[in-house]
């Protein structure tokens, strides 16, 4: 049986909204090395507030989209855990079966996101002519 709670922590009523940058496909390195710490790209905004993202030598033109339904970012709260090690903390799912061992799980809302930056068009490659060496 499961009973996991979700709440907005009382102490930070003024939560800062997170951002989502949504891209088609996946980001990968050319070699299977961990992504941690890696540089992704430069995000620019035009004077008309349109986002432009340059990753590698791909240009992505996107737009800021208001979410139809806001998204809550949930994170497991650790302070209530009596038996953290029993639980499948890395579980991908909220589904009860993954948490059968305990019902003291609780989540807190880190933030509620109302908009995202969506890059839904195919990235344009930067086609550069090779600079001539002097």
């Amino acid at each position: 049986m499961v009973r996991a709670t979700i709440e907005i922590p009382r102490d930070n009523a003024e939560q800062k909204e997170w951002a989502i940058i949504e891209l088609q496909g996946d980001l990968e390195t050319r070699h299977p090395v961990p992504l941690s710490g890696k540089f992704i790209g430069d995000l620019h905004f035009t004077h008309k507030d349109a986002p432009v993202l340059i990753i590698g030598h791909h240009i992505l033109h996107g737009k800021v989209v208001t979410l139809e339904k806001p998204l809550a970012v949930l994170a497991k709260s650790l302070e209530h855990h009596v038996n953290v090690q029993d639980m499948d903390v890395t579980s991908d799912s909220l589904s009860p079966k993954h948490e059968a061992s305990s019902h003291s799980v609780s989540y807190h809302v880190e933030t509620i996101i109302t908009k995202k930056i969506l890059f839904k068009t195919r990235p344009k490659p930067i086609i550069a002519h090779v600079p001539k060496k002097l």
Partner: protein
Amino acid sequence: MDEIQIASEKEQVGALPGALNSNTESIDLDPSSPCITDGNLAINTPRSRSILDINHILEFAKLEPADFRSQVQCLYFSEQLENDAIKLMELDGPLQDALKSGERIEIRGDPGDGAVVVTGSQTFDVKEAETSNSMLMISSLSYGPDIPNEDDKSIIKRQVSSIVHNYYELRPIKPRLAKLRALLSENPFRGSECEGDELDIGKKYTFSELQQRVQASDAEIKRGLAKMNTCELKGVWRLLDFEYAATVLYHILQLCEERDWLQNGLNMTECLQVLGELFPIEIIKHMVTSHSNENPDTMETDAQKNIYNLCEDKICKHLAELCLKNSGKFNLNDFLRAWQESVPDGMKTNLSQIEGMALVDSDARPPVIWYYSVDLLPEDVGERFEVLFEERKKWSLEDITPYIRDLTDEKTTVNALLTKYARASLTNGIKMFSSRKTN
């Protein structure tokens, strides 16, 4: 071409052109040395970036730095990149309001039930939605309008803390209360003298235990308990055994006839005094209130609260159930006579009182009636119709309505349900509904 190419040399790890020091190395964006990354974007090793690097890239991209706002946000994966650290959950209006007002919402259910999310008063089905897009989560980011326009470019490092490919969609649903009945049926209350006897072996549940097992909000569980003839006794919720409840109500009705309470209203204090020796007080109270007219009670004084008017329809329904339950098919006319005789003087029976509890076959000779309660039918709409069409091939609108009304809501009416789950046809000029399945 599905592949997105990325070309680079000098560094096997895939150096980003702009990340190289352009003073000492030439930059090669020769597309003839492709690195195919299977439809995915390739990213590169970290370097500390300078305005020069950024402008350099813009130049290659044939973009004019002056066309952009002065602040450039360089995105990096966090050193603690942790994709499973967070979950995204779609919030609709009521859920967001509940959260913001500080209400605690919960995920509930037994393993195998699938998760539901409940607020204090509503239940939501949880479905996981996957997307092939990558959502990069960034705890802090500036949007165009936030960026002041200054002459000098500035750089801000932004960290992506996780990449997410799924989120939970929530959909308001009717509470799943069948489990409530199932759990409480494990050990119904058959009277104080039966507690601890050889049949008193099933589990008894506290409200908190029910909250853990039943996929419904607290308010919905409470409504379900109230509807189901249950009582909280010594901290646990018990379903009253039907025979037992009938005995208690029989005594209450006897007392009412003795004291003329059917006309004048039942005096609770007195009732508890007299019957309290025989039955637990909670149960007497429960039986009286659940068989009384609902009071618009908020403004009542204590003195008035003590007086209850028993509800004719509820009493008649109870006595019909007593008659029909466990007795199979009953000759309709015999039943109607016996039923009327069983109710207190002055009360009048009517078949409309027991719709949703008994079915009549007027085509049979003689016409018959039998116990068939909507409370025992499946909650799932599809299963409900399947069971109903097993019981009876064709239903009139009038007959089927009481058996599906509980599945309706503001958006889905009885007619909408029938349109979706049944086939309509005319029999002797009367519209009848049958299964959509052909067999």
